[in-house]
């Protein structure tokens, strides 16, 4: 029905068009109907993405090709031509040329439907959630712009364009975090996100410079006689990579790219912005800060995996950053009382999982990371939307200590949140189980050889336990127990409107089935991506499927254990503690005879306090060391400026004096320093 190339253009074009329409007409004319163009466009994009997926999955790589790829050049964007003269004596510098080229390959085709599908559901959800907000049209314009940028990010075929849309999604994220800009925290959070991301972008940009200097092009694909960085020619002959980039450059390029990925995907030490980014509207948290934009780093590392394969140290760094972040964020999530913040730290932790998988440097690991990205998008979006539903019902109160037992007033939300929680915790047969299993298996494979991966494996298992614990804790605190609602809400606690429940249900169904459905097929599909299909990454054998019973068993046990302990504390004890508190107020000595009270104290001292301490320590490191470094970097130029501004005295003759002084210095130097 549609040609591949027109599909590739239509997918990003529709959201862009919708964003422009809403941006121009929304304020005056569309007003509360601003969602119409965006929802329609996103749904259209989603359909086209699926068509494209079908198209690409039907293609088989021919003999000359590594993997499957389709590229479509729209126009030449910029050209900094080397001057026309080239004489034999002059080393011709290559033209710096950027073509607007879209590409479709399995990796892109995996990302596109996921992004557009979740975006569509979030847009529908926001119809209920954002209803009546004065910036309704603005919200939809931003969302359209974001989806355009994100779809472009995954479909462009050039590092420069990747960088452009990398920034573009950052800008959209900035705008959406600061959406309620009258609120000081929101403005500050937007700024923080932007600034921390700049640090990452700085590294990324330097990585791009190095790539350009080494390869002479920024293209992924081959164009004419220019051999792309990830083009067929180089992939077919991976030995050339080692000739082009050698020594420290081979290490520097992946590390600099990883710095960029750390910024965008909120990895240690640049993870600090993501929890604060929860100041934005909850649909935004679900779409941008859980499912799509934050995975851009993972996507980019996967896309560039041939570059990461060149130096094992780079892989180790990626794995260590991932593993450490996963553990750190898991620990912090234990003690958070803000529902959205628990989920935010959980996102950081799960992204760490993905990087850990990518860092194994095996095809199975990369596939596992992408698979986890895929499943995580569904259940994390579900959880966030569920949290948003709670917020909607609780009049924007999200502190878990102020409500409980909401299962009675919000049955749909409760049910879908439960499914999401179980999926996140990794309970059979929900989505999280299958992907987490693959990740653990990939790490375990590397741990056979000993070395740091052994520790990474154990920390990953520990993280799985923590994940189950804090997820269950959040669920129990919110939905179980006696019905408590904040007094601001009064009797108005209610289930959310159908526009919000519908996406929840759809996502819940997806969270149940995407794992088991795509367990093998997703891997088989994306290994045909050129970057992954080359022998450098795929090795001799390609992808092999094993189901690791031992690992599945361990992860299940760990998850169940986590849930059980959470249940013990937050189902039973909370009631006990509440009752106890009341009794203790009346009868002082009675408490001593209550054995449960002792247990509680012992557990508290033995278990909760150290963890809490550890969590607090992590938080402190986070707060003072990392934030402090970031602040220091911002402080230095200001301090220099404070000193230098003293020369601007306002007296003309001082200025003239300084000018002549500069002149005298220049002349004096040229007399002494006899160059030229």
């Amino acid at each position, binding site marked *: 029905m549609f040609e591949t190339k027109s599909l590739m253009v239509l997918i990003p074009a529709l959201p862009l068009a919708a964003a422009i329409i809403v941006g121009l007409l929304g304020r005056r004319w569309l007003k509360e109907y601003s969602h119409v163009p965006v929802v329609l466009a996103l749904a259209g994009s989603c359909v086209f993405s699926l068509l494209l997926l079908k198209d690409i999955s039907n293609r088989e790589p021919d003999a000359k090709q590594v993997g499957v790829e389709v590229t479509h050049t729209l126009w030449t964007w910029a050209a900094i031509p080397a001057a026309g003269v080239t004489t034999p004596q*002059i080393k011709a510098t290559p033209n710096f040329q950027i073509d607007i080229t879209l590409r479709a390959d399995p990796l892109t085709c995996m990302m596109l439907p996921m992004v557009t599908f979740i975006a569509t559901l979030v847009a529908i959800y926001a119809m209920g959630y954002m209803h009546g907000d004065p910036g309704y049209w603005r919200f939809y314009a931003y969302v359209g712009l974001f989806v355009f940028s994100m779809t472009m990010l995954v479909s462009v075929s050039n590092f420069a364009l990747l960088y452009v849309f990398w920034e573009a999604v950052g800008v959209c994220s900035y705008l959406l975090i600061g959406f309620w800009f009258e609120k000081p925290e929101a403005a500050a959070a937007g700024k923080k996100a932007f600034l921390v991301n700049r640090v990452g972008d700085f590294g990324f940009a330097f990585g791009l410079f190095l790539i350009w200097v080494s390869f002479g092009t920024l293209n992924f694909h081959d164009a004419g006689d220019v051999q792309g960085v990830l083009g067929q020619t180089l992939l077919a002959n991976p030995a050339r990579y080692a000739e082009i980039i050698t020594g420290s450059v081979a290490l520097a390029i992946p590390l600099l790219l990883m710095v960029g990925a750390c910024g965008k995907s909120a990895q240690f030490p640049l993870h600090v912005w993501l929890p604060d980014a929860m100041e934005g509207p909850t649909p935004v948290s679900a779409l941008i800060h859980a499912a799509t934009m934050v995975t851009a780093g993972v996507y980019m590392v996967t896309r560039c995996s041939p570059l990461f394969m060149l130096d094992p140290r780079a892989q180790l760094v990626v794995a260590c950053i991932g593993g450490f972040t996963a553990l750190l964020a898991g620990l912090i999530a234990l003690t958070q009382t803000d529902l959205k913040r628990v989920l935010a730290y959980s996102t950081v932790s799960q992204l760490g999982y993905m990087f850990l998988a990518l860092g194994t440097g095996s095809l199975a690991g990369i596939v596992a990371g992408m698979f986890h990205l895929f499943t995580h998008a569904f259940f994390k979006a579900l959880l966030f939307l569920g949290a948003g539903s709670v917020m909607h019902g609780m009049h924007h109160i999200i502190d878990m200590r102020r409500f409980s037992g909401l299962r009675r007033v919000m049955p749909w939300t409760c049910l879908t949140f439960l499914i999401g929680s179980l999926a996140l915790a990794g309970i059979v047969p929900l989505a999280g189980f299958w992907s987490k299993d693959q990740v653990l298996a990939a790490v375990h494979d590397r741990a056979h050889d000993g070395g740091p991966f052994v520790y990474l494996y154990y920390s990953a298992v520990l993280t799985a336990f923590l994940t189950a614990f804090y997820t269950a804790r959040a669920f129990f605190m919110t939905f179980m127990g006696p019905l408590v609602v904040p007094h601001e809400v009064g009797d108005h606690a209610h289930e959310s409107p159908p526009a919000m429940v519908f996406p929840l249900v759809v996502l819940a169904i997806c969270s149940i089935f995407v794992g088991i459905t795509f367990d093998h097929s997703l891997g088989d599909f994306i290994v045909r991506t050129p970057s992954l299909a080359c022998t450098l990454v795929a090795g001799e054998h390609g992808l092999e499927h094993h189901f690791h019973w031992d690992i599945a068993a361990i992860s299940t046990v760990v998850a169940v254990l986590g849930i059980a302990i959470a249940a013990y504390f937050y189902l039973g004890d909370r009631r006990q503690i509440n009752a106890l508190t009341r009794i203790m107020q009346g009868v002082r000595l009675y408490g001593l005879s209550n054995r449960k009270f002792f247990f509680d104290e012992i557990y508290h001292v033995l278990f909760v306090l150290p963890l809490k301490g550890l969590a607090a320590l992590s938080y402190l490191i986070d707060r003072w060391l990392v934030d402090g470094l970031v602040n220091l970097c*911002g402080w230095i*130029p200001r301090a220099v400026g404070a000193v230098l501004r003293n020369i601007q005295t306002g007296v003309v003759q001082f200025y003239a004096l300084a000018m002549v002084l500069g002149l005298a210095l220049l002349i004096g130097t040229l007399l002494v320093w006899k160059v030229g």
Partner: protein
Amino acid sequence: MSLDAIKILTPELIVILTATLIYVLGAFLPGRHWGRVAMLGLIGAAIALYCTYEYRFWPEGAQAPLASVEIKGPIAVDLFGQYIRWLALLVGSLFVLTAQRPSSSTPAAEMVGTLLMSVAGTMLVGSARELGLLFLGLELVSIPTYVVLYLARGDRASQESTVKYFFLSILSSGVLLYGFTFLYGLTGTTDLVEIRQILLAGDDTLGAGRLFGRLALVLIFAGLGFRITAVPFHFYAPDVFQGTSNLNAGLLSVLPKIVGFTALVRLIAIAMPGYEVLAWRVAIVLAVLTMTLGNVLALWQDNVRRMLAYSSIAHAGYMLIGLAVGLAANMEDVSSVALFQGIGSTIFYLVVYGVSTAGVFAALTALGEPDKQVDLLDDLAGAGKTHPFVAGCIAVFMFSLAGLPPLAGFWGKLSLFFSALGVDAPTGGDTSDLRKWFLALAIVAALNAAIAAAYYLRIVGVMYFRSPLTTLAGEGGRGARVALTASVVLVVLMGLAPGRLQSGANKAAQSLLPAPATPQVAKLP
């Protein structure tokens, strides 16, 4: 020669005649017909623009009509001159539009006419090939500037800014002229082409003349450093910007930079072969000082114009990179690629910077009212809500100045950085040192770009994330709005398709030197 010269100078003549006409009409027009005066200026600029189109430089083969005009004289007929002319007319028209509604104490005819005169001066500098004419062109930019500075507001601050600019400007003119003196003394001619030939041939008539040459180089750098606001010749900029109107601040941050860089290219990069080693080192030192100082001081400012003054200083630093590249590359070979890339990226950056800056100041003008301007950063608070269109445009300009893709400023910075990274050791020469210097320069520039983002975003943040403190009138006139819209369209267009402009700049840079049919360069002993 004279008839041909007149033909070639048609655009300048038209602009000057329009200005004169405006002066004359100003004496007869009763009341305040500012709209008409600005319209007249605009028509003049448009006709002049059409005349430059006669020597269009977009199509490939269009150099032919230019080459056929063989003129030995003070006017260079090359694409470089055309590019500068075209740029001057473009930003000049934007400024004329912005000037459509001056304050009630400003005599509009004098204002607009004088403004056009300085545009004519800029155009003249673009194609001047002789020391005397070059000097007059520079003065034809700065003398009108004194006048418009004074006429802008008619209050104490504007008087102060005029007096500051006046004295420092005549000091710098003196220094520049002293540099001209030594250049003339070195070679015995005022014609830049002849100077180049004499220096290339190595028969400068003074025995130990190299000392004179170096002296000339440094003095010229110092004199023109004032125009381009290079540190330490930048001092006037923040004070003068603060004390004058938004329109004048825009004028001051664009036109002197254009003439300064044009003159530097013509005088140092082209006319003084054999002195590049000193020249590129001076340029690098100035570049590092200039961009760093501009950026760190901009972090502290609360006055919008003052902040933008420091920003304009920083941008001069970026542009000096391109000049340094051009100078360093020239060392080896006339036909060197990097020479053209360096100079080409500098003039491309001039376009990008000029349009963005003209846009910013047009927007600030539009937000204020004729007798009360937008001064402080606080005045802009909440503009995102009260004036969404203008605020959005300012945000675009800020992002462009900060160098965020995909706006024009990004390409400007990118081509500068690439030209710096493209400096390569010439074959056989031991200049590994050279590459290192330029790598360091690129890194410093990148760091500076990161610092700069902080204060550009601060403006955006103030507009969008704060609630208004004062009410912005938004009575700057329709002209300012049109100028602002035109600039924003240009910035976005240049961001989406900068290719032709870049290749145009490169071709312009190539046209500075005769085709490399005879690439032999006699090295000086």
